[in-house]
Structures are given as structure tokens and as C-alpha cells.
């Protein structure tokens, strides 16, 4: 970590000695090197292991495991399941993403109370991963290398995509921000952070969908797709999206369909 900081500082120092644009490129290169160095050891592996144990543990009032949870490929099928979510489920007659679906299984199979199960879905910086985060890590790992295949066959799946698209462009709140304010133009940055053009560039949507969930080094914790949306809305000065709510599923559907065909590569590791 010290070496990385030194590399960043060296990059920054070098940057100051050049003209601004050249300097900025050096800084960006140093950050790219830092990201490269991170790829060697991903602490998400530990979270995956905890998630697997949790998946198989008999818990809740019904003393049942989640092994019979149907994630869309049949009860008990975990391999490749994350790559085809969100999708429509006949038993709830709803389009559900992985996170809302696993909560559904915790409620129906294990007898947990919905409000309790979703009370604290995200860990704080440096805190232990929540159960949901661990269950996210385990299940998404079982889709690594699997092509994203999110269905648009059911009318509700289409409606989810269309609502997600409308919400993506909806400007609201005291800052007048929409998702598109930051993610609708190619080559844009906030400070030095490159912003994916999710609306218009397939590769950008693919990278966003296939590399979340991710282990966030700066926060020392694994972050899920629901967290990614939640923290975007915080910074966009909106109210808080309810965990697993229809609007969040719709945005994930909008992003996911754009990523169809790309291979899942998650949990990844990010800055």
C-alpha cells in the first residue's frame, strides 16, 4: 500500500513538472497502474467463502438453508444465475434483481421478516460485511465468465427496461441531476474519475454491469449493485432508493440488457 501511495505521489510530482494536460495524463496513468496492482489479491474471495457458508447454513424461524432458492434457473441452481437477473418471476409476478430475490428467499424459505432482512443491507466503511453482501459475493462468483443474458421476453421485463430508461433521464432534486447528467456523454470525468457512458456506449454498459459487485479498496468492503445505485442517488442529492425497490430493479434491467452478451467478471476489485 505504501509503495502504491509513493507511486501515486511520484506520478503527481512528475505531473506538476509538466504542462497541465500532459501532467494530467501522467496522474491518470499512475492511477491506472494502481488499479493494475490491485488485481493481484482480491479480498472478495473471503467474502465469497463466508457467503457460501451462509447460503448453506440452516437459519431463521424455519431453520432452512437457501439451497432451494430459485434464482430463475430452477430451485437450487446458483451457477450462472446472477448473469440472467433481473428477470420476471411467476411466483411473485414481479421483475426482481438478485438482491431483491435473495431477500424473497430469506423470507419464504427461512421465515425471516422482510423489514428485518433488509434493515441494514450495506456495511459501513471498515465494518464486517452484511449477510446480504456475503450472499451477493457468493452467488455472483458462480457467474464469473458466464455471458450476461437478461430476458426481454415477458411484457413486464420490457416495461422494466422502459421505466428504467425514463428514470435514467429524469432530472430532479435541488441539483437537477439525472443519471444521464454524468453517464450520458463519452469522455466525461468528475475530477479524474472517468464516467461510463452507460446510455450510449455498449462497452461502457458492459463494463459497469459485469464488474459490479466489487471489492472497494478505499472502503475496505464489498459493494453490491444496489449499493452502487444507492450511493449515486446520495451524490445526486435525491432521496434514498428503497433497497430492492421496483425503480432500482428497473435501472438494473436498463443497464443489464445493454450489457447482454458480455461475460461476468465479478466480484472485481476497484479503487
Amino acid at each position, binding site marked *: 500500500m505504501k509503495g502504491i501511495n509513493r507511486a501515486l505521489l511520484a506520478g503527481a510530482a512528475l505531473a506538476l513538472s509538466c504542462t497541465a494536460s500532459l501532467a494530467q495524463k501522467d496522474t491518470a496513468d499512475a492511477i491506472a497502474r494502481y488499479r493494475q496492482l490491485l488485481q493481484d489479491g482480491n479480498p472478495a474471495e473471503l467474502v465469497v467463502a463466508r457467503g457460501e457458508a451462509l447460503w448453506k447454513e440452516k437459519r431463521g424461524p424455519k431453520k432452512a438453508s437457501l439451497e432451494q432458492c430459485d434464482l430463475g434457473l430452477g430451485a437450487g441452481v446458483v451457477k450462472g444465475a446472477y448473469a440472467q437477473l433481473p428477470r420476471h418471476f411467476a411466483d411473485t409476478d414481479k421483475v426482481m434483481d438478485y438482491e431483491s430475490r435473495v431477500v424473497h428467499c430469506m423470507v419464504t424459505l427461512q421465515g425471516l421478516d422482510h423489514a428485518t432482512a433488509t434493515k441494514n443491507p450495506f456495511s459501513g466503511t471498515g465494518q464486517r460485511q452484511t449477510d446480504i453482501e456475503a450472499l451477493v459475493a457468493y452467488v455472483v462468483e458462480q457467474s464469473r465468465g458466464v455471458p450476461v443474458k437478461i430476458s426481454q421476453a415477458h411484457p413486464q421485463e420490457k416495461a422494466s427496461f422502459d421505466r428504467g430508461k425514463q428514470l435514467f433521464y429524469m432530472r*430532479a432534486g435541488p441539483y437537477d441531476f439525472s443519471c444521464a447528467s454524468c453517464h450520458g456523454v463519452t469522455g466525461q470525468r468528475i475530477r479524474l474519475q472517468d464516467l461510463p457512458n452507460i446510455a450510449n456506449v455498449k462497452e461502457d454498459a458492459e463494463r459497469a454491469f459485469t464488474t459490479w459487485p466489487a471489492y472497494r479498496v478505499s472502503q475496505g468492503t464489498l459493494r453490491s449493485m444496489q449499493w452502487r445505485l444507492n450511493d449515486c442517488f446520495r451524490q445526486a442529492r435525491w432521496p434514498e432508493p428503497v433497497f430492492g425497490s421496483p425503480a432500482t430493479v428497473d435501472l438494473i434491467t436498463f443497464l443489464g440488457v445493454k450489457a447482454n452478451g458480455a461475460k461476468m467478471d465479478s466480484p472485481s476489485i476497484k479503487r
Partner: protein
Amino acid sequence: MKRKHVLAAVLAIGSAVLIGCATYTAPTREETLQVVNSSFRERGIAKLDRLKQSDMQVACSEASLTGQELPKDVAARLEKQALATVKYPADGAYLGDFKQGERIAQTGVGLQWSDNDKTVAGGNCYACHELASQELAFGNIGPSLKGYGRLRGNSKEVVTYTWGKLWNSHAYNACSQMPRYGDANILTTAQLKDLMALLLDPNSPVNK
């Protein structure tokens, strides 16, 4: 008889499927708004009234969604409405302290649910703009403002335009992406004066 029933059932299912496919219509704006409204909750200072869109937000969202520019008359009306919101300093003094202005430009907090009503908000200008040349970590969603005052001078026109742009950016560009720092009560009048100095004071790092 049985065969007839089966046939009728097959026909019924078949036509239901056909109707199902043929009648798919994309959700209307109102339907989507209902789903959105039921999907958020207030947290701290971020209340649900933030989901209620202004005329500008509705018109600019639609333009962004469809990729169409606003009709000229709509754009002109929104700009006129925005310009009418601008409150110019009563004391006629526009330039505060550029050092404070630099701090405000660097700070990104304010109005998030992770802030509170005591949080002194920043302008977060560097998130989107290049300003002082020694700050390399600047974004590019907005244009470079390096040398802003040096290049434009500080005539009355430049000064009042800049104030109006900071107060309500939509006065000069109907669907501007820049927050309405004065109109939306993000920054105080004193803070806006400090940002004015950052942009226009000849001794500001922006103009060095």
C-alpha cells in the same frame, strides 16, 4: 365435444398470447413516476419533495430522453423564468475573497442525506471545471474556466452575467447541467461573492 373444448382452449390461449404481444405499450411518464415515487424514501435532509419536478426539470428530462432539442419557444420561456429568479447583491458588491472561493470550489459536500442542515455546502466546481492551474484533479463536464477573468475582463456585463450564471445557470442555457447555486439555496450570497472573486479577481489563482 372434448376435442372442441381443447380447440377452443388452444384458440383462447393463442389469441391471449397474440393480444399480449400486440398490446404491449411502453409505460407512460405518469406510470413511471408512480413507480419512482413508491421506490424512494426520505432520509435525513433528503425529503421526498425532491422527486417533485419543476417545469424545467420535466422539459429537460424529456429532451434528454428523446434526444431532441427543446423547441425554441420553450427554451426561451425557461430562460426568461430562470433569469427572473436571479437576486443581485443589494450592496452592489460582487467580489468577495478568492481564497475562500477556492475552498468552496474544492468542497463537494452539502444537501446529501449524509450531510445535515448544519453542513456548510461547497460548490464542488472542480468536479466539472478546470480553474486554478495548480489543481490538476479537475473534471470536464463543464468548460475550462482557467483564466476566466483575465480573458473576459470585469466589465459590468461580465460581472452580472457571471453572477446570473452562478445563481441560476438556466437563465443562459435552458437545460444547463450546472446546479442553481443561488436559486436552489445551495450556496449563500457571501459564498457566491467568494466564487465571483475566484473567477474575476486579477490576483485569484484562476487568473495567474
